[in-house]
């Protein structure tokens, strides 16, 4: 009797096991579907709307078909470059500090705050840059957009730099110190060059993240229908243009929005893949 009972129990247990196991398979399928769904429509609608003029022309008013987003593509690059000027050095510096003073109370505190900063809504960064740059200047500007995005880069660059500096083997550092190198020379000449590929990954990950940001640019960079490369003037950005075109009532502009989204995704994916490649070479170097 007891054997019968245990056989039944074990059947039930095996059924539950198989059932839950297949549920996780279903979850995996369901979780990858949205991505394929998004990419499929991007390609389908984006490719048909994309043409050479998109890369070379300025936007046209809605009554005129055609036009492009040349200024928005360049504008995005300008803002992202401006953001890097702020985000990269501060992020790398803070990351080195976190890696070299691992257990110090300040390091624990800064690490925690960097993570909190990373979770701040991007729109809050926008109102911060608005109040700090747009209000004193009296008008929207590329500089304000770059400040908002640069501030967003800092936590990402900080944490990846920290991780990459940490995986540098300590015998390397110790060997340099034993040869009479000072602390700062060991850090700058030995540790940093070794971790460089990894740090580059962090910078690229941060770039990929901010390149597609729209909310912080709404009332900082603001957008511009004409050519402008000045940090002092409102500037066009690809995400802003996608947003404005998507919520417009014109079919022409909807097509342009899809084309813009495809270009933006391509930009972000290329940066992400570069980041992956950089990590791989970085890890190979550190573990060899």
């Amino acid at each position, binding site marked *: 009797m007891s054997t019968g009972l245990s056989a039944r129990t074990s059947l039930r247990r095996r059924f539950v096991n198989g059932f839950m196991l297949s549920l996780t398979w279903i979850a995996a399928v369901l979780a990858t579907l949205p991505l394929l769904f998004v990419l499929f429509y991007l390609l389908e609608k984006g490719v048909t709307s994309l043409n050479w003029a998109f890369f070379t022309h300025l936007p046209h008013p809605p009554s005129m078909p055609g036009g492009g987003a040349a200024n928005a593509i360049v504008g995005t690059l300008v803002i992202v470059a401006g953001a890097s000027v702020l985000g990269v050095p501060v992020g790398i510096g803070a990351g080195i500090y976190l890696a070299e003073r691992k257990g110090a109370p300040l390091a624990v505190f800064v690490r925690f705050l960097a993570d909190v900063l990373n979770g701040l809504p991007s729109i809050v960064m926008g*109102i911060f840059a608005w109040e700090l740059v747009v209000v004193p200047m009296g008008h929207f500007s590329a500089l304000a957009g770059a400040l908002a995005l640069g501030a967003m880069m800092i936590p990402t660059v900080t944490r990846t730099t920290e991780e990459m500096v940490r995986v540098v083997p300590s015998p390397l550092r110790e060997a340099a110190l034993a040869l009479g190198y000072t602390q700062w020379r060991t850090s700058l000449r030995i540790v940093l060059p070794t971790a460089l590929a990894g740090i580059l990954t962090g910078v690229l990950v941060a770039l990929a993240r901010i390149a597609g*940001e729209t909310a912080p640019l709404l009332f900082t960079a603001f957008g511009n229908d004409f050519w402008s490369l000045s940090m002092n003037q409102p500037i066009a950005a690809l995400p802003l243009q996608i947003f404005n075109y998507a919520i417009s009532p014109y079919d022409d502009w909807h097509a342009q929005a899809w084309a813009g989204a495809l270009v933006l995704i391509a930009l972000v994916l290329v940066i992400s893949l570069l980041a992956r490649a950089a990590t791989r070479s970085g890890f190979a170097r550190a573990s060899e």
Partner: protein
Amino acid sequence: MVDEVRAGASGEAENTPTEPPRAGIAIHGGGAGDRIYSVVITVFALAVPALLLLIFAVVTNAAWPALKTFGFGFLTSSDWDPVNDVYGAAPALYGTLVSSFLALIIATPLALGVAIFLSEFAPPWLRRPVAFLVDLLAAIPSVVYGLWGIFVLIPILRSYVMPFLRDTLHLGATPFFSGPAYGPSMLAAGVILAIMILPYISAVSREVLMAVPRSQREAALALGATRWEMLWGAAIPFARSGIAGGVILGLGRALGETMAVTMVIGNRQEIAASLLAPGYTMASLIANQFTEATSDLNLSALMAVGFVLFVVTLIVNAGARWLVWRTSREAGI
């Protein structure tokens, strides 16, 4: 490889016109250099708290006039009337909370399922591609999700999902699924947010599940547990607070998400019980109205919405980080 790097680095050092590394000089000169170096990186590190403090000060300062005028009533009033200069953020606060929780309800089981799949059950050859695809969800810009939401997701929801929920499943009898099926709606916002936060929850859950010590799993299996019993009885309890941290991290993302939500939620200043009706969130309220603010108080009211959003996400994120940190510390011991 390491030797090359070392050789290269020391080669550089030889090229620079510095004195040979005599011990006395090196220690002496290093003292000053090390102090300067230490100060420089400390300053960079201090930039992080300084930035956070500055953001807090700037936003609080800008929000102050509205907070002072409306007090706590700002969070409970539904008036948003630029003509009479009276503002209340209740519909936006409600919309932010409801859309975020809706997203959590949809995303959490899926994300957990994927995390368990990837950490326990997936065949090795499938692990990397699936993890890559799920991580990639986080790389898609918010505005692209919004575009997709407007032209693909909303038509599907309006034509198939909403009538199915309301009529076929008879959920229309409850207030949550009653009334006409608008396209842009709380439901659309919840679904798009769920897709957007899924990679964050699943990445953290996967990490904490993988951090569960092998001995823990092996002990359960040795006692005759099935793989699921091992997971449920041994691995998940161990990873519980880390998983909770991941979920709360996803909540933080959802609360502050702006563009995609703005594009699909319908932007209506009203509290509607039905998920099929349009709503508003705090972030989309700021995004839509900021450049069109008519008075100083109007602008300050929008800043106050930003202030509330800032404080709420700050608390949520700090809590999430603490939970994740606690788990990883326990796993370390």
